[in-house]
């Protein structure tokens, strides 16, 4: 079963361990600028601190793949990841425009498109995310996982109701 990186924004603490892990593994140094996952911060000190990890979701209809004029993006049959061919990519940035969630970026060093390729089925970033804001989940388990997470509050509500009646 194909797996995807599931993001739970409520759990992200903004530590950027995922960015560091991605760059160490994929470019060989510590460099968030070239990380394929980025933590976007929304914060106002004294008021709120919210963080959203943004990473390619390997769409069912991958607009990046559809949009690429030189067919540099192809789906890896094993992992289900859309993978950029470094040889073919011309750096036209059309994919970055087409992607609805900012999942494809331009590598500032190589000047070609770069995006998450799921580390060939063993994504490094998720290994360090202790709060589990990102996790690598089989597609057929995604649904119930989400439902369980969202229903947890109802479960607490049951307890409350039982204590009242």
């Amino acid at each position, binding site marked *: 079963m194909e797996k995807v990186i599931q993001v739970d924004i409520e759990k992200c603490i903004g*530590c950027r361990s995922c960015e560091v892990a991605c*760059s*160490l593994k994929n470019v060989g140094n510590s460099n968030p600028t070239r990380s394929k996952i980025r933590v*976007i*911060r929304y914060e106002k000190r004294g008021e*709120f*601190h919210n963080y959203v990890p943004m990473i390619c979701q390997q769409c069912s209809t991958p607009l990046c793949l559809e949009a690429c004029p030189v067919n540099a993006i192809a789906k890896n049959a094993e992992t289900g990841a859309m993978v950029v061919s470094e040889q073919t990519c011309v750096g036209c940035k059309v994919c970055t425009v087409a992607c609805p969630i900012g999942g494809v970026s331009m590598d500032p060093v190589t000047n070609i498109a770069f995006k998450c390729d799921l580390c060939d089925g063993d994504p490094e970033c998720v290994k360090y995310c202790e709060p589990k804001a990102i996790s690598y989940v089989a597609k057929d388990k995604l649904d119930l996982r989400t439902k369980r997470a969202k229903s947890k509050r109802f479960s607490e509500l049951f307890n409350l109701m039982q204590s009242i009646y």
Partner: protein
Amino acid sequence: MVYGWAGRTLNVDLSKDKISTEPWNEAAKMYLGGRGGNAWLFWRHSRVNQSPFDDDAPLIFGAGALAATGLIGASRMEVTAVSPSKTETHSYGNVGMGSFWAPELKFAGYDNIVIKGRAEKPVYLYVYNDEVEIRDAKDIWGKGTFETEALIREEIDDEDVQVASIGPAGENLVVQSTVEHNYRSGTPLGAAMGYKRLKSVAVRGTNPVEVHDPERVLELNRQLVDKVRKAKALNVGIPRDKGMDAYLQGFLVGDAGVVGDYESHEWRERPNVKKAYEESSLGDYYVKDIGCFGCPFPCQPLFDLPGIGACIWRCYPTYWPWKLWMTDLRESFKATRMMSDLGMDNKEIATIVSWLMHLYSDGKVTASDLDGVAFEKGSSEALFETIRKVAYREGFGDTLADGPLALAKKLGPSAMEYLKHNQGMTMRTFEFRAEPGTALGEAISERGNSLRATTYHVVIWDKPARDDYTGMPPEEREAALAWSKEMFGTEKAIIATEYEGKPAALIYEMDGAAVADSLGYCVTMIRPSRVGAPGSQIGDMSYEFAAERFTAATGVPMDEAGLFEAGERICNLERAIAVRDGRSREKDTLHEYFFKVPIPDGPQKGRMLDREKFEKMKDEYYALRGWDVKTGLQRASTLKRLGMKDVSDQLKKASKLAKEKPEKEE
């Protein structure tokens, strides 16, 4: 290729509007970076007995040697300057902070920034890779640190800019003012920055930090994650859950720290801390934990109280309220947040207010002495008035902003008698009378704040603080005692109330802290490994593990002994700075109070420091350090062994070097 370090130092002269860079000195790397690297720069750039309000006085920002390498827990920055708050001696002052500033500086390509001179009008420094600008700060001058950060991010149009700022207190040269970054601060140095009319240092970097063995770094990170998980599962160290650790952190200090009853010289007639905490329902307003760069184990609980706002509430801020006899935690949360925004040190301010409350309660001062403010015990109004008056230098706050000694002189002899201070700074709440090792650390500490020179991490108590408290589990106690015997030759070294073995334990702690502070390691992640012993923190790691991590990132061979040697070197350099500025054996001491007034109540009733035993501890400390026992000065041979001949030569020139030990004593 430089691995680990960024490899460059940024020099800024605010008087001349000049910016330059130079390679981060190879020789300085033996002081690692962060605290040690800053000390090395301070030694080079400062003059003997320089005033913090001297145009030429250096203000140094540094990143820990391993910050931004991707190693979990390496994120800390260090600020070093002539201390404004040690009003008696000034000299060396430093403060370390976690969060995101240091990594950003490394990504911009610098290990440290040396700022000299004084701007003509308020400015802030903006560092974006090779683009460095001294910018006009007229629109942010006067603003709190929270708003300052938002305004700078807005002006630069980049949410990822990391900002370290002073608030109005720093601008007004208040000696209790701090440099703030992301709710972090500590030992006050803000006035040194305010004098330079420098509002903020904003950094943004998009370059890589090269690491020697990225695969190994990841592997060691995985090991660390695993170790911390296991420790968490065992509930070893300080429990951290839903922000409730906030108050535990404040009270679980060693074996004596049973909620609210830990030993402190600062307060008597204690309020019921546990009850106050539970009744405050503060836990209802806990939002989440946030942490530092590259660390998936956040430890900073964020609270958001209706009508007040959000702030981190942890560690010191959770236990200063008790020494003001304050039980309304909502009010103390509000005060903590206010001080963070105004840029002032809650430890200094709270201790000062506690002192005034003592005086007021004993009838030594009246409201009329203090602009009509009644310093009733527990009065939050007195606290808020003090904060405001000090930050904006109004009324008695104007005097107090020059330090508690200045106010004590005005208030008279009782005020002076009641004031316990170290070189003009207020003291931590430790019960020094029952803790000789911690007392020694406070006396030795260069910066006048014993948190970096204390045995409190290696301490267990001879008896529990409360009758209904059973103390630590016997097997943990046994393990701790055995560790003490192995490390320091005596079980007593780890028992708070003993004198024996304390100098060796203190040196172990001081050198270890210097290593952590210089690598930029979190002190939670690297503190000595002694699973289950009091004060040991979650994720305790051995120094061996720390050395492995260092090598993976930098490619420089290292082992535990090598790290401790670096720690010893850093402590020696800091000592050299203090000695250069007038430190000597007789100045390594504590307020008379701790030797004269016995503890009036509680399990440690009757104890006080024994002058003779205390001086004997000092003898032993200097001897173990390889310093002259008579004067407390360093020796050329010791400094040479540590590769510090240059420091030794300069001390010699200043006649601040001890004579070599006579042969027969060897």
